């Protein structure tokens, strides 16, 4: 009985800790179906977040927010886009803001994790061999 109590208290604490953490999603974990639960900024259509002003300053100051909303890149993929814009489109050095911008992009515009709903999945990668 005492054991059960201790166990449930532990589980309760654990779930509180998890809830607290989930506000700050660890890298690589993409929030599923956020579109239904996350509010959108009426001006840009981007996900509302405390870091949204950073996105407006560094990204949509120059280009449409649709360049963000229509894409789902990995963190590395978003870094590549930033480097490409820095190389060809005079994007400035984001400095210490880059981490926050990438966190935002990865959190809301990471690879889509919805289940496949097409008519045929791509072929799985084979074990390549010399014929």
């Amino acid at each position: 009985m005492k054991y059960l109590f201790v166990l449930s208290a532990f589980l309760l604490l654990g779930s509180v800790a998890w809830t607290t953490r989930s506000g700050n999603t660890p890298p690589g974990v993409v929030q599923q179906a956020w579109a239904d639960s996350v509010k959108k900024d009426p001006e840009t259509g981007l996900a509302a977040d405390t870091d949204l002003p950073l996105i407006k300053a560094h990204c949509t100051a120059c280009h449409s927010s649709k360049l963000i909303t229509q894409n789902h890149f990995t963190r590395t993929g978003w870094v590549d886009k930033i480097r490409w814009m820095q190389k060809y489109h005079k994007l400035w050095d984001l400095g210490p803001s880059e981490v926050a911008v990438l966190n935002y992009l990865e959190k809301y515009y990471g690879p889509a994790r919805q289940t496949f709903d097409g008519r045929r999945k791509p072929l799985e990668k084979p074990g390549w061999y010399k014929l």
Partner: protein
Amino acid sequence: MRENDRRRFIKQSVLGTLGTILSTEAVFAIPEGYTPLFFDNDRDALKGKSTEMVVLNDRPWNVEAPAHLLDDTVTPAEKMFIRNNGIVPETIDVKGWTLTINGESAMTKKVYTLEDLKKKFKAHTYQLTLECGGNGRAGYFPSTSGNQWTNGGVSCAEWTGVRLRDILEDAGIKEDAVYIGYYGKDIHPSREPGKVVISRGVPIKKALEEETLIAWAMNGKDIPVVHGYPLRLVIGGWPASVSGKWLHTISIRNKIHDGPKMTGKSYKVPINPVEPGVDPPEDQFRIIESMPVKSLITYPQTGAMLALGKPLQVRGHAWAGDLQVKQLEVSIDFGATWQKADLKAPKNRLAWQHWTAELTFPKLGYYEVWARATDSKGVSQPMVMPQWNPEGYINNSCHRIAVKVV
């Protein structure tokens, strides 16, 4: 052989206790032809099977062949898929084995020993395509429950036996006969004695076809235990679940057979097409009869890398249920263009057909070779997922392999 080991052990035990021979004999003596209890046919299911076979389930056994393993024109036992619904019979008494013909629409009840079957009736040999109704299930989205067969739940071996028609006519078929249903000796997974595992069948018209066999041999040898030794019903072109293994009874029915796995949604698809994910009520399903047109690329194995300018010989098989395949095409550009393959006639009706094609690749890079068969009624394999169905049956979408030109 474990059986021999057991016998040797028993003999040694008997010799070792000569002093008390009388009582020992009474304990250990084994009647002739009796198989010890721990002789485990089910555990031995993979004995002799290729190590490349893929186990989807081991209780009951569901084992498939990767496509490249099915390259032989006649499928050998070691590359034949296993789809069991129950446990392989523990004891198989060949001498005492009988086939009973009964049912409401049988004029007389008949019982035949294996010897009777071999002596009284003419033997026939046919190469017959047996494909699991659920072959290709892994390709359905949303995914459906059941063993996730990819492409390898198909075989085409040579079966020898007597025509079911000859036996049914010997017993006499009443005018009101509608269906036949088989019964086999496999053991229910619950191990409840006498509980029927699977008992399916076909309409009387299909049962009376020339190629429908009561077989005792596969590829010129006794049928392997896991594939139905010593007697199996073999009905080509329909879901392989109608080809009952360890066969002991066939009932001539005056209605659609109602054994386990004939009812509910087993081996059935919705009468009217449904949106993927929609599962209509039972009364809106129909029994799967002939399997749809399909093909496999069995050479090369997917993942082949070859040098630019080197032509690639590809080959495989094609089949079309009750029909014949009239055309086989291959594509290396995702169906934008198709090239006709050389397609052979089947060895006999309901046998798969072999095809070959020579491909040349225009430049370096990643390609997929897709094969598409068309049946004698002009119906082709879809490139995408076919009509989705809740149980995930009859997925006959085109097979494809990856090739790199380096």
